[in-house]
């Protein structure tokens, strides 16, 4: 475009330009006295990595002045409705790695940016133009930055940059733009606290862009937990076993894992294993660390649960001729499960929150995404958005724990959970149970089958507990 304008001005210029163009075609790269090294754009997609057209971003253009040349001005041109209007340009010239003193003035006019240097830039210098607040064409696409420059022999064509990938505006960004424009939002943000922790624009983008991290958190803890339960159970049984070696191993395992910060365990696993040439995918490693850590806590929970089952239960079981394992798996553990559910749920909540520590070693989970957003925006709102994602899971679970605990307290007071044919039903409607308790006991007495042995023993527990 600029090219056309200049053609109209003087014939001489036209002649020179044609000559240069011809030369350019003859010598594709060698002819450039100012070579274009690169042109890149800062991603301006909130919570993403795309470069969006029509929104402010920063263009970084670099070129080297070749031997025997002096460049006095540069014109950069964007295609379509790309715009430099309102942009500020930082000019840096470097000789190797040290800054050279080059001053210049940039004037923007629509899709062209003219940089005039106060003194011609001499050979061998790397010129770096950082244009902050420019906009690429709003329709997106692969954008080539072209232009011209002036050296001692006149105006020359600049080599086209490699295309910069840009995208058209997204619906989310449009919503953000609408929030940006709203005076109510501006008033809200003018309060330093609200603006720092509850900025609506960022909250919106964060809620969208944190989802993959949230799913990864959930995935890690949901996969890790069954393993943690199995491991925990094994170590719990080992810890109460009579065999001193098994007991020793379990005690060391549990105490070391419970006695050191998870942070440390993560570092050891993530940096230690690769040093021993064991390379495991980061996410899998995350699952392993969380599972191992949770298993130590679960082992203690299970041990306490098992040991809280009164001795009378063991005696009753052995009087029926049951072996140790029979006693454990059909008498003791089923009762333990009921007792440990609230504590295990609490531990699940802890493990879910603990996944946040994995961000420190680069697992792309919830905190990592929020940290990304925060470091780009310098605002704390993404962390608040992350808190919402944690609460979405933890609040319902906390509610569940409360309900289960209330029911258990109710049962302990003798209010509910009388012997009954089906234990599952007993959990469902313990409220009605107190009134119907008498009939339940009666019904139980009429069913002396072996299959109800477990629940029959359960019915003994409150009484025996008081005796012991």
């Amino acid at each position, binding site marked *: 475009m600029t090219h056309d304008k200049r053609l109209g001005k003087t014939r001489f210029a036209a002649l020179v330009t044609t000559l240069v163009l011809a030369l350019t075609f003859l010598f594709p790269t060698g002819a450039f006295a100012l070579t274009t090294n*690169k042109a*890149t*754009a*800062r*991603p301006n997609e909130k919570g993403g*990595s795309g470069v969006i057209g029509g929104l402010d971003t*920063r263009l*970084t253009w670099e070129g080297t002045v070749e031997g025997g040349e002096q460049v006095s001005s540069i014109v950069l041109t964007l295609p379509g409705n790309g715009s430099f209007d*309102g942009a*500020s340009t*930082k000019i*840096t*010239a*470097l000789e*190797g*790695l*040290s*800054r050279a003193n080059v001053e210049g003035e940039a004037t923007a006019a629509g899709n062209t940016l003219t940089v005039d240097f106060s003194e011609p830039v001499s050979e061998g210098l*790397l010129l*770096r133009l950082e244009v*902050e*607040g420019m906009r690429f064409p709003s329709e997106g696409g692969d954008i080539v930055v072209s232009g011209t420059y002036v050296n001692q022999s006149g105006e020359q064509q600049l080599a086209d940059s490699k295309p910069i*990938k840009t995208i058209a505006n997204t619906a989310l960004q449009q919503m953000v733009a609408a929030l940006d424009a709203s005076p109510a939002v501006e008033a809200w943000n003018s309060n*330093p606290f609200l603006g*720092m922790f509850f900025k609506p624009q960022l909250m919106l983008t964060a809620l969208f862009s944190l989802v993959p991290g949230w799913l990864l958190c959930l995935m890690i803890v949901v996969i890790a937990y069954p393993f943690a339960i199995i491991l925990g159970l094994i170590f719990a049984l080992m810890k109460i076993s009579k065999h001193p070696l098994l007991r020793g191993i379990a005690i060391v395992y549990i105490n070391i894992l419970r006695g050191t910060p998870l942070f440390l365990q993560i570092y050891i696993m*993530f*940096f230690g294993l*690769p*040093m021993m040439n064991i*390379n495991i995918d*980061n996410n899998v490693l995350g699952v392993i660390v969380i599972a191992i850590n949770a298993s130590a806590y679960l082992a203690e929970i299970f041990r306490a649960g098992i040991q809280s089952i009164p001795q009378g239960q063991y005696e009753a079981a052995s009087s029926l001729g049951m072996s140790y394992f029979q006693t454990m798996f059909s008498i003791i553990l089923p009762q333990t499960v009921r007792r440990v559910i609230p504590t295990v749920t609490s531990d699940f909540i802890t493990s879910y929150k603990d996944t946040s520590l994995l961000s*420190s*070693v*680069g697992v*792309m989970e919830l905190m*990592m995404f929020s*940290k*990304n957003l*925060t*470091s780009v925006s*310098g*605002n*704390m709102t993404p962390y608040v958005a992350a808190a919402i994602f944690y609460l979405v899971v933890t609040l319902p679970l906390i509610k569940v724990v409360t309900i289960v605990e209330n029911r258990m307290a109710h049962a302990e007071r003798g209010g509910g959970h009388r012997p009954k044919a089906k234990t599952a039903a007993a959990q469902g409607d313990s409220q009605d149970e107190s009134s119907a308790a008498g009939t339940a006991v009666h019904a139980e007495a009429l069913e002396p089958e072996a299959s109800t042995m477990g629940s029959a023993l359960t019915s003994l527990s409150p009484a025996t507990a008081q005796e012991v």
Partner: protein
Amino acid sequence: MSNNIAKLSRRSFIKSSALSALALGALAACGSKESDDNAASTPANDAADTAAEEYTLVQEGKLIVASDLDFPPLDSFENSTPQGFDVDLSNEIAARLGLECEYLPPQDFDSIIPMIKQGGKADIGNSAFSITPERELEIDFTEPYLDSNLGVAVKKDLGISGGEEAIVNALNASDMTVAVQAGTTGEAWARENLPEATIVPLASVTVCMTGVSTGQYQAFCADLPVIGHQCTVSFTDCEIALEIPTGEQYGIVVSKDNPGLTAAINKALADMEADGTMDELKSKWFGE
């Protein structure tokens, strides 16, 4: 004690509002004359200059500095004492302002600018902050005190070589994981120039370098002096694969509500430049 602080902050509030009113006045006056944004900054600076020495501090008589102290040779925390070029600089500035320099314990790099912006904890942030327009939206920078560039560290046996372009192309692949320190210009460079690679922002240089050294991440992009120091002193199995000339400059971070302090530090920096103290510091920490 608390009463004292309350008084101070009330006073500081009046001062800062007076200052911002001044600055606003200057801006408005300028705005009516011409609409050029760049021209507006000069009168505003003048307003700050006339108010020089009129600054507020979190604690009277003390210049409290926030730094990540994990960026040797610029900032480090050896034997629980802050050390490095920036630390000497802060001490010298404080001495010239007649203040006692006090460092906060090491802070996360990306939390320092929000901290200075919010105020109340530290007076300045001095942690090798490159002056960038995005950061200037949040806080004020003093005049630049040091030039810097970026670099990329890789493990020696990674096996990428060639010119700058070849290395950037090799790193810009979906199977590459590039560690950066959160909130740094190294992170911005990686996001802009390596869009295909996975960028992992971490808290500290040491974690980044350990990750590169163990093969967790393929590369680490940060300020060249720091990378150079890490590759020669701490992680000798790593090397600088790429030197990126960016010509960025470090400035000290001051709250926008405290233009008097910015002006006072600028004066101290200019004096240090003039009497050769700055050159002494540079040769102490960077050789030459």
